[in-house]
């Protein structure tokens, strides 16, 4: 081994150590970034015994990464559902509060019973009308909350879609960098890290699956199989609906022309924020609105006035008006939003609450208390009986039919809270899985500062040794040249 070889070895060692130090510095810089992975300098020993840097790779674990992606999607989806249900829960409130339609119905029933015991008491009649107005306003407000929630979910979907489009563009830039760099054999680890970070953000919005091809080229599909990215970003499109009412149904999200959410989804996404929001917009709120509408329909039917003269006149709305002239016989979307107290009964606008006792809001043929007896209670008691009788409800409310109105309303509360409970449990477990998966990923691929520092100390020694070696070789040459001279 000649002195020149020793010199070369020391020199390449210096270069390698410098590269390793640079990599370690990058690691130290990225230690606080959860998306940064640990960079590793791969070295090799050449034929002459010197160490050379081959390339720079990163610590990675594909299985763990994909698990983290899935957990991210699942958690974001459940979070969206839970938030939506939290909004719906505002229409119910605590069991002790009088916010829920069930509690308001109970108050109406009580007022009606009290009035039936003393039908000659106008104050009690007014109390019934006030309770009735409370029920109607409560149903109107609940409908508004539900429909606003649908509108909010719809605009959140629109936001998510535009973010996905934006992220896909960024993804394309990083993916191109990765592919080009891989083809040329340059360091692509930073681009890979960035690409992974972008993919995680996309996964928050919609569930994804990936396939990696030659030169680290990544293809991204939604978890339902629609292509989001292959060489170029595909367009995700969505047309938002500005205002929702009970009869409105929202639009679908399209990925590359394929419908992936909404009413007619060919390949519905399973997880992610968009899937969660779609569940809120198209399923939970719609069912809850159906329940409110059925409560409203029950009320209109209960207080409807029937013909007393056998002249064949139709049954017409009484205390509660459904926004149309007739009593609806089937589920009427949006009824809970328009139900109101008949002005003929409302003393604040010149009506007479005693019509509750006498009947006849729709004309003389509907008068029950023909003798105008002040304490006539038969009609009121009949109304109470009807209010507390079993009714048929539309299965679209997803509650059991053949119960009385109060039970149905309480069932609606049960339904909502059960949904919330299961969504909360699912969200908790999804976020636990996410935290576990991302922790595991970070443990494996993250950066340990202590280790980097120890490595730097080691590299420092190595650098010193190589430098010393160069010095020694130099001195040897000096001695040699001194002999020659």
């Amino acid at each position: 081994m000649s002195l020149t070889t020793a010199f070369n070895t020391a020199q390449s060692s210096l270069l390698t150590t410098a590269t390793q130090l640079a990599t370690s510095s990058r690691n130290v810089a990225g230690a606080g970034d959860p998306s940064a992975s640990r960079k590793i300098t791969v070295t090799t020993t050449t034929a002459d015994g010197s160490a050379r840097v081959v390339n720079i790779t990163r610590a990675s674990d594909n299985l763990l990464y994909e698990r983290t992606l899935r957990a991210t999607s699942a958690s974001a989806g459940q979070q969206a559902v839970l938030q939506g249900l939290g909004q719906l829960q505002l229409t119910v409130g605590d069991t002790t509060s009088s916010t829920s339609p069930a509690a308001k119905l109970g108050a109406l029933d009580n007022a009606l019973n009290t009035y039936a015991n003393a039908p000659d008491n106008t104050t009690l009649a007014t109390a019934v009308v006030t309770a009735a107005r409370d029920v109607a306003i409560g149903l109107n407000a609940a409908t508004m909350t539900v429909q606003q929630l649908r509108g909010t979910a719809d605009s959140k979907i629109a936001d998510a879609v535009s973010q996905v489009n934006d992220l896909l563009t960024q993804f394309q830039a990083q993916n191109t960098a990765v592919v080009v760099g891989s083809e040329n054999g340059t360091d692509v680890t930073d681009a890979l890290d960035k690409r992974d970070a972008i993919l995680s953000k996309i996964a928050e919005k919609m569930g994804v699956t990936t396939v990696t091809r030659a030169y680290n080229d990544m293809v991204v599909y939604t978890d339902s199989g629609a292509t989001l990215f292959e060489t170029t970003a595909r367009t995700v499109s969505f047309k938002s609906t500005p205002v929702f009412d009970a009869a409105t149904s929202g639009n679908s999200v399209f990925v590359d022309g394929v419908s992936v959410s909404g009413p007619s989804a060919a390949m519905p996404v399973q997880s992610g924020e968009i899937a969660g929001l779609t569940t809120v917009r198209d399923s939970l709120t719609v069912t809850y609105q159906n329940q409110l509408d059925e409560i409203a329909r029950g009320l209109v039917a209960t207080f409807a006035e029937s013909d007393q003269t056998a002249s064949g006149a139709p049954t017409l709305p009484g205390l509660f008006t459904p926004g149309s002239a007739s009593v609806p016989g089937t589920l009427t979307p949006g009824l809970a939003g328009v139900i109101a107290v008949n002005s003929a009964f409302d003393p604040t606008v010149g009506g007479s609450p005693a019509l509750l006792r006498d009947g006849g809001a729709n004309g003389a043929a509907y008068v029950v208390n023909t003798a105008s007896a002040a304490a006539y209670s038969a009609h009121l008691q009949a109304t109470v009986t009807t209010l507390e009788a079993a009714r048929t409800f539309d299965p679209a409310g997803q509650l059991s039919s053949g119960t009385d109105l109060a039970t149905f309303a309480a069932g609606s509360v049960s339904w909502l809270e059960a949904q919330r409970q299961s969504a909360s449990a699912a969200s908790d477990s999804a976020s636990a899985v996410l935290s576990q998966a991302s922790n595991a990923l970070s443990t494996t691929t993250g950066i340990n500062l202590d280790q980097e520092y120890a490595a730097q100390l080691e590299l420092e020694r190595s650098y010193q040794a190589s430098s010393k070696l160069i010095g020694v070789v130099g001195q040897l040459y000096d001695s040699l040249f001194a002999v020659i001279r």
Partner: protein
Amino acid sequence: MMSSYISTLSWTSAALNTLPKLQSEVSKANTEIATGRHADVGLTLGITTGRSVDLHTKETAVQSLIDANALTTNQLSLTQNALTDIANTANGFLQSLMSVPDTSGGAASLEAQGRTSMNGLTATLNTSDGKRFIFAGVNSAVRPVADYSAAPKAALNAAFAAKFGLDPTDPQNDSQIANITPAAMSSFLDTEFANMFKDPAWGTSWSSASNENLVSRISQNERATVSTNANTKPMRELAMAYAMVGDLGIGKMSASTLQVVLDKARTVVGSAVSGVTDTQAALGVTQQRVASSNDSMAQVVAATQAQISALEGVDPAEAKTRMDTLTTQLQMSYATTAKLMQLSILNYV
């Protein structure tokens, strides 16, 4: 190759990540200790929340029935007092009828007592509790019995005068009354006179009360008749007896005719008194039912509250223990985080 590896981030954040979870648990436990109920009742109960809402509604409903029963009880005792009043007057009248000899000497005082009793009867039947006339049946806004001196007296005078050819303006003081035979009087009392106290004459000249009594809901599944009215048989009989004695001019009758009137009056009052007692007994039963349903509803309220607290309540002692454990955990988490943050190889090199 390292046998084990952990990144700095997951090393330091492990303890830190549990903090928000612990903090929200502490806040939950805090609420539970303060209220004695679950922090989020709906979330905890889930599908059974409807049951809880149902129980709350039921409790309010039963409570409002108990409140309404207070009014019913008031109405019933008012009616009972009035009936006792009516029965006392009737009994006093009956005693006078029994004790007065069948001569025209005592007739004048009896006549006066008849009129006073009639006024007392109409006044009592027109009793109002300030909101309704309690003897009016369901037609409670209208004064049930007309003033005797108006329509009823006019009808009586007309019938009396027509039957016996007396002075229509003042038949009671017509001297021809003395000529009425017992047989004629008996026939008059059984037909024309009796008809005035039957429908439809009773409805037109005497009473505007309804035959239909008030019915109240006294418990969740029980309805009861809580009033009587001025059209019942004993009331008509009393009015008939008082009118018979007070306004047929018995002071001027022959002894034998007077005997017919007094006999008839005794029979009618006797029947009326027992009728009033029957009514009182019937209403007494209702009072009893109201009282017992109040008792049972109070138990229902207590049972419902117990069920609600079984559903919604938390054991404060358990919550406090949980809170203490959580606080300890939280402190440990803080300490661990702080300790880990201080650990660095830099401090030792």
